[in-house]
């Protein structure tokens, strides 16, 4: 049993993400979903239960957090770890070993179990979670979804009574989310208590017993899944929440008329380390088109986007812009990639400096206009690192506009975003499209695709079998690509 009694918390030197006067009891075997806008405090609740507050994050804490009658703040971390297993958002920084076997055993090694038991537990975990394929592999070579599975397996091997997941689906594709759901179903059937803080809600509707909606650090309302499903779409969006049922998400009725193509790819074949990643890709795109790119991990989406931007060397075939062939250098000039982790592409110490970074004679007027256009004027003096994820993304877009790039590639721009931020990114993309940019978006986000994209390219096994318009008529195909089931599961 988990009890939060009159809990308030505020992080040192930070106004948002705090909690005010939280009272909540979670009984054994319950599955509770915490949702709400970014910064509403849902992650903070998970940190209270796994002891990271107050032991890792400093701040002002009032009230008591009890797990099985024991106060969490009085227990050392390693004792909490035996009771409460945590899975986090970022698969890249959750593993500690280089090979998967040692990683699965990491938690139980720390518990100092005898070697014989270690081996048995690892075997048992492998079997229960069906991850035979992932044994004895180098973790650095796994996809995000596979890494997340190993992180889950490592916690599962410790066999805690309480599982705590903080936005576990943020970096996962649709198939991996399905598999995560199966794993959650398994632990639920074992009678474990599950706490999940999450933006993507649809995959949890069958699992959650209660849904806690937080606003500005307070519990606004607690729903049952039935009540929650009945919320009208408008109200749900007003609460800043993502779709509850993906089958209710629909593409527009008809697509906008398309002008003459400006970008043309002729017979493009891409190699990576002597392996052919994609072959014979041909497509054309017009100004203002927004093209979604989907496919499993390893299907060549990344290589394709890097080649498009002139970052990948090993490719055959022709890229034409306005009828003229573009070599790698020309593509590099013409295009810009907004990375999933934007931190890699921000170099300067203020937003304004960032916008003119590396440009010999920066056009100050253009810089100001662009900042105004993207609503960044108020932040021009701020250090990019102090901005929110969405604001950083806009800074990167501003850079691309100032550099006069006409071809933009977004890599997973909506991972881990709530409804408001997602709608904002969609608005930004639409504005870029109105300016006549050609936009490619690598994404797994069906809701986002329906709002922004005009077409979806599907890569699979080195080919591009599908090029589907995002319209009502193509709904069955789109659902297939994003593994949206027809809701028969209910």
């Amino acid at each position: 049993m988990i009890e939060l009694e009159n809990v308030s918390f505020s992080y040192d030197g930070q106004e948002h993400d705090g909690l005010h006067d939280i009272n909540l009891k979670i009984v054994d075997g319950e599955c509770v979903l915490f949702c709400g806008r970014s910064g509403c405090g849902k992650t903070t609740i998970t940190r209270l239960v796994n002891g990271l507050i107050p032991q890792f994050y400093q701040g002002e804490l009032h009230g008591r957090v009890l797990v099985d009658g024991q106060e969490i703040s009085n227990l050392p971390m390693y004792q909490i770890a035996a009771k409460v297993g945590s899975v986090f958002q970022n698969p890249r920084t959750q593993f500690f070993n280089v090979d998967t076997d040692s990683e699965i055993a990491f938690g139980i090694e720390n518990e100092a179990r005898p070697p014989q038991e270690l081996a048995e537990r690892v075997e048992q975990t492998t079997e229960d979670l069906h991850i035979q394929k992932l044994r004895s592999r180098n973790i650095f070579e796994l996809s995000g979804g596979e890494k997340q599975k190993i992180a889950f397996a490592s916690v599962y091997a410790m066999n805690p009574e309480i599982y705590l997941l903080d936005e576990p689906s943020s970096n996962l594709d649709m198939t991996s989310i399905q598999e995560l759901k199966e794993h959650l179903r398994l632990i639920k059937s074992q009678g474990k208590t599950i706490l999940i803080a999450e933006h993507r809600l649809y995959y949890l509707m069958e699992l959650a017993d209660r849904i806690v909606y937080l606003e500005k650090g307070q519990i606004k309302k607690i729903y049952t899944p039935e009540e929650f499903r009945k919320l009208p779409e408008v109200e749900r969006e007003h609460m800043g929440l993502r779709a509850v049922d993906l089958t209710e998400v629909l593409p527009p009725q008809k697509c906008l008329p398309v002008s003459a193509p400006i970008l043309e790819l002729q017979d493009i074949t891409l190699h990576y380390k002597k392996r052919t990643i994609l072959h014979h890709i041909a497509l054309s795109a017009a100004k203002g088109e927004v093209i979604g790119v989907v496919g499993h991990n390893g299907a060549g989406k990344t290589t394709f986007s890097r080649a498009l931007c002139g970052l990948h060397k090993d490719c055959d075939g022709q890229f034409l812009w306005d009828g003229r062939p573009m070599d790698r250098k020309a593509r590099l000039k013409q295009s810009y990639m907004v990375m999933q982790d934007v931190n890699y592409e921000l170099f300067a110490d203020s937003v304004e400096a960032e916008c003119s970074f590396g440009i010999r004679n920066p056009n100050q007027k253009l810089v100001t206009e662009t900042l105004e256009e993207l609503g960044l004027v108020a932040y021009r003096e701020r250090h990019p690192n102090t901005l929110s994820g969405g604001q950083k993304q806009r800074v990167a877009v501003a850079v691309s506009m100032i550099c006069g790039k006409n071809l933009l590639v977004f890599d997973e721009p909506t991972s881990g975003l709530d409804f408001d931020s997602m709608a904002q990114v969609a608005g930004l993309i639409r504005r870029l499209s109105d300016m006549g940019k050609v936009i490619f978006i690598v994404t797994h986000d069906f809701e986002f695709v329906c709002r922004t994209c005009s077409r979806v390219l599907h890569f699979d096994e080195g080919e591009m079998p599908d090029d589907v318009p995002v319209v009502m008529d193509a709904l069955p195909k789109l659902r297939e690509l994003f593994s949206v089931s027809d809701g028969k599961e209910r």
Partner: protein
Amino acid sequence: MSGERRKKGLWLDPRTKLFLILICVLASMFAPSLAYQFALVVLIAILGTFFGKWKYVIKAVCFYAVICVLTVWIMAEMTGTLRTMFIAFLGLFHKVYACGMLAGIVLSTTKVNEFLSAMNRVHAPKKLVIPLAVMLRYIPTIQEDWRYIKDAMRMRDVSPSLGGFLSHPGMTVECIYVPLMMTASKAADELSIASVTRGIENPNPRTCLVQIKCGIADWMIMTVAVAFLIFELCVRGGVIG
């Protein structure tokens, strides 16, 4: 059973590796001449090939050979301040090179969990071991980060090459260290969190899926290392030759 699933190359106890680094530092320090320095590098190279690190070894030895030839040439041809300057610089370089090369091999062949258990066996304090383990784990992350940063630089028309560095040193350095710092502090936090929430701070002696023990290979390699050091000391002391 899974403990025996080591695929390629030699496996050494992390304690042996630490011991080798210690001996290597001493051997570099007491090396009587360039020939012995070179012999040390070759010995490390042989160790590297046992670990299956062919490419790394070949590059490292070739590079060192070039530096050696350069040193000999400078000693023979140059005079005056330029010579002193070069000798001071190269002297330091020769002392450090072998250790750096060995450290590279050790870092790339030691698993974090093996390292943790080995440190446990020698009763090293957890306060020291945990940050070291986080660091050991963080190194491969930098490689991944570097790939993204290179891409980002190219898109901003900053060349991530030696030429680019020489023509715009300030800007190139900024482009590398700003994003690295930003991602590093976040990654270090997240790694620490991932480890404490899985009980790394448990004071009980840690067990390990892979059993670490000092085998014949460990003893043999340590013997060779010690023998080399003693031989060097003898030469220096004038016992031999």
